[in-house]
């Protein structure tokens, strides 16, 4: 493995060209289209947040002083934290088993993760509407068991959190799997041949080596959760709003584009700060590796 790595490193150094002009010509179409068709629109949101309806910083003042809005931001962070921890708790064993096996079971698990990864958020949110609904299977089980009506499950922060955990879980599993797959199994065999019990070998060898995957997956899931739109709106409740619900409400019910833009800017800033910290320590490239 080390020879392969060194050959690759030499190859990378050797033929890489310093012809700056050609490089710029190759990169320019992508860079320019992102600037014109992405950075400019985002800049427009920034502009709107301080100019609509009048030029002022009032929206931001309101956002940070009115308890309702501070509560929404706090709730968004809390929910994202819960979803991230739940994804880690459920995702780690699944990724571990899938990465350590090479058999049909691993293939079936990968199929399950791939299927849920590629199926759209709306479809997957819809299935929770059926499951947790008044006439759904949970209610049917309650009726069969003679427990009467189940507690209100749908349109609560519980259903919203559950739905987001379900939807973001494959992202966590794939991030963990990518790192775990590269852990050489002979390390574990070495630990065991030196007398470590399987659990000790796991906790002293495998777990520390898998930590980069834990960090990648957690950052990915947490930042995706902060701005999650579809699921909180379809499954959540206005009583425990997340940031995206507040944005949607401001636009649809109140047509308050300026205030909605200010909320969006705060959401963007929070996301950028988190990814900036991650970039400092790990390098952003690895996040989607």
């Amino acid at each position, binding site marked *: 493995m080390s020879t392969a790595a060194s050959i690759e490193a030499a190859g990378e150094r050797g033929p890489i060209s310093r012809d700056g002009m050609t490089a710029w010509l190759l990169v320019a179409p992508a860079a320019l289209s992102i600037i014109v068709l992405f950075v400019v629109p985002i800049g427009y949101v920034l502009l709107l947040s301080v100019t609509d309806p009048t030029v002022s910083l009032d929206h931001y003042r309101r956002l940070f002083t009115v308890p309702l809005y501070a509560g929404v931001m706090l709730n968004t962070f809390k929910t994202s934290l819960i979803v991230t921890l739940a994804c880690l708790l459920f995702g780690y064993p699944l990724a571990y088993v899938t990465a350590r096996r090479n058999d049909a079971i691993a293939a079936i698990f990968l199929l399950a993760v791939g299927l849920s990864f590629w199926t759209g958020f709306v479809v997957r949110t819809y299935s929770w509407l059926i499951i947790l609904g008044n006439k759904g299977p949970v209610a049917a089980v309650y009726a069969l068991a003679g427990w009467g009506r189940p507690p209100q499950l749908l349109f609560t922060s519980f259903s919203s959190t559950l739905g987001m955990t379900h939807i973001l879980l494959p992202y966590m599993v794939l991030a963990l799997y990518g790192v775990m797959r590269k852990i050489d199994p002979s390390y574990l065999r070495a630990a065991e041949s030196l007398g470590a019990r399987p659990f000790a070998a796991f906790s002293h060898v495998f777990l520390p080596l898998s930590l980069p995957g834990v960090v990648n997956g957690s950052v990915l899931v947490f930042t995706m959760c902060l701005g999650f*739109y579809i699921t909180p709106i379809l499954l959540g409740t206005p009583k425990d709003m997340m940031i995206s619900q507040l944005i949607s409400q401001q636009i649809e019910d109140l047509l308050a584009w300026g205030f909605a833009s200010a909320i969006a800017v705060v959401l963007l800033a929070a996301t950028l700060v988190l990814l900036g910290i991650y970039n400092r320590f790990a390098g952003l490239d690895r996040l989607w590796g």
Partner: protein
Amino acid sequence: MARPSLFASLPLLFATLVALFLVAPMAIIVPMSFSTAISFEFPPPGFWTGYYAEYFSSPAWLDATANSFIIAFGSMVLTLLVALPAAFGFVRYRFRGKGALNMLMMLPVIVPAVVSALGYYGFLSLAYLTGTRTGVILAHSILSIPVAFLVISAALKGFDRNLERAAMSAGAGPLRTFLWITLPVLRPGILVGALFAFLHSFNEAVVAIFIAGRDASTLPKKMFESIRLESDPVIAVVSTLLTGAIFLGVLLSMLFRQSAPHRSGNAA
């Protein structure tokens, strides 16, 4: 030996439960799509294929389906046109400002979808492009750049440049070498990048909800609105068809990868 086997089987049990948690909720839409119920009722009171007939005869649903395919295809083409050269520039050259430009390339996946959606709504209405397919294609092609760029760059990093040198020393010019050697060898990576870009657009809901309007409505947007407003049972039909297609696609790609491990090894 009791302890090792317990430690070996406990994670397997838990992993199986988690895999079921992933798949079971999605499986429920299949019986739902054949249900006679007019709203979210499970178990179904009876079975028929009436809502399939309704989907295939409803102009609104068929239009949304056509829009989804047209928009995903259009944005895939545009994405490839800019992401492919960019991948070559980043993998094969060193230049000033590379780090910052790399950040710029990743920006569309970093920014939360709601924020992009708000930006596009304002920006595209200035250009009179909200509610048009062109507008959604433009927005989606930008949003898909990072995925296509990452996949193609990975394939390019695994490319053995001795192949090109061999062609050149055998007398082929740069263009010929590119068309006859480089592109064919990279084809699997480019195809995967294209597929990812297509699916990224096909599944994208938030930006579409904000900018597609009625005329350019895509399937995710139409489903989102149907769920919110009327809970149309045709949603279960569409969901089943989409999930079935994805299931087949993932299954085929896994079988393909198993039969040709050396080919995809570099791309991954």
